[in-house]
């Protein structure tokens, strides 16, 4: 065995020992972190052990089978329609607000980098980080129970979701045509409409559709805080311990979400 090999071998074995030690230490820390978490979260260990049985029992005995008669009753169907309506209107109004915001929030296009850009960014980031259900509860406090508050929560959700994606897309566009329109002496809005928007149309359409899909998902639970839609029925079924009915609603929600995902997928395929 040559000297070269001996040196390489020593180095390798050393690295391997260090690697093992690091792995071991990481594993140990993870365990310690786990025990600390159990303490902080006050998780009852006895309940962890019995949880499979209880969750299994919950699912197989109390939730299944779903009460599909209830789930297709007139009031549920009405709530489903209301949910869809909320998601459509919320997405529509939200998109109208997002269009200028995304324009302002794209560094390469923004008409004003000092004031408009940071404001638009801030609005988008905050809307993105604000959970819809919290927004909905606040809006219910202001505007009362009903789908109006839910719809507004979806507007906020749209600004956060579509705003970020649209601005990101806008930052990737080709500036040549934009400058060409600018060279004709067109104003900022005209530059946007004729130079910028045509380039962004396909990707922004895709985002709008994708956003609607995401809003529909969140609109299914806004009813929990009284902000309209199917979620109210779910909460009400659970509060009267009617779990089969609740499961019926869950099935309806899954069908709704899967259908909207398929539809959004189909529409985006057509536009891209």
């Amino acid at each position, binding site marked *: 065995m040559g000297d070269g090999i001996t040196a390489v071998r020593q180095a*390798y074995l050393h*690295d391997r020992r260090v690697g093992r030690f690091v792995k071991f230490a990481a594993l140990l820390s993870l365990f310690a972190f786990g025990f600390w978490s159990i303490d902080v979260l006050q998780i009852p260990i006895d309940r962890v052990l019995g949880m499979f049985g209880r969750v299994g029992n919950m699912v197989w005995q109390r939730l299944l089978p779903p009460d599909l008669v209830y789930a297709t009753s007139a009031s549920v169907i009405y709530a489903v329609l209301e949910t869809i309506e909320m998601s459509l209107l919320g997405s529509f109004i939200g998109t109208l607000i997002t269009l200028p915001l995304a324009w302002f929030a794209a560094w390469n296009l923004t008409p004003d980098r000092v004031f408009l850009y940071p404001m638009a960014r801030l609005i988008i980031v905050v809307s993105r980080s604000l959970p819809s259900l919290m927004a909905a509860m606040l809006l219910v406090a202001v505007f009362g129970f009903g789908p109006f508050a839910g719809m507004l929560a979806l507007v906020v959700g749209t600004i956060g979701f579509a705003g970020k994606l649209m601005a990101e897309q806008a930052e990737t566009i080709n500036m040549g045509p934009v400058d060409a329109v600018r060279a004709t002496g067109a104003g900022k809005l005209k530059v946007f409409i004729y130079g910028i928007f045509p380039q962004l149309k396909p990707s922004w359409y895709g985002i709008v559709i994708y956003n609607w899909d995401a809003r529909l998902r969140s609109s299914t639970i806004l009813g929990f805080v009284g902000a309209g839609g199917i979620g109210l029925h779910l909460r009400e079924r659970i509060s009267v311990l009617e779990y089969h009915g609740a499961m019926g609603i869950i099935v309806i929600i899954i069908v709704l979400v899967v259908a909207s995902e398929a539809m959004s997928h189909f529409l985006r395929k057509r536009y891209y």
Partner: protein
Amino acid sequence: MPLLEIRALKKSYATGEVALKGVDLSVSAQEIVAILGLSGSGKSTLLRCVNRLVEPDSGSVTLDGLEITALNKRQLRRARQSMGMIFQEFNLVDRLTVLENVLSGTLGSVSLWRAFSRAFPRENLDRALGLCERVGILDHIKKRADQLSGGQRQRVGIARALMQNPKILLVDEPTSSLDPKIGAEVMELMLEVAHETHVAMLFSVHDVRLATEYSNRIVGLQGGSKIFDERTETVKPEAIDLIYGMNKRAARG
């Protein structure tokens, strides 16, 4: 008795493609045999049928008297350990290091726990390092496999195959992804180590020069059938024309 004995081997793919129409072939201990044929003639299929990466339809493959086609999965895994394979596209695991790639040649024999924790036994490690030195990649063992050049990658492939302590090397167009100079180097190296370790070698090529230069015997394959099988010194140009000439005519017609 030859080391490897292939008899009446047939294979058609699910697509209906008939790749092998009953091939007979034998390789003696320490013999270097080239399979020469155009692309699509069935070379890869033949090699893969030997270790049953491709399952043959009928015929027999025996290695050292052991009937490979009759083995169950576990026995097959054992038998595969004595057949090292080297691939045209190298088939290294890109995200593992060079040394881990070489060590993976012993996967058939190490325990599951060692494989999981990548803690290969010391003697395997020493052997791997020795092979890395032999094929000239000792300086690169810490690098990820995808950071090497093509020639270096194939050297890793050679070391990995030798790691198995094979009785025979099954080599599928080892130089087709390399430029000619590097390819020749790799070919030389492969031949040298085969001699040093007393391993037989069955390799496929579509390049006549490589076949005549590096083999003891040449087997000509065409359309899934063997059309000649002769010692390299005695192979006549007509035999080779049979493979390439017919193609020219077909291309014209």
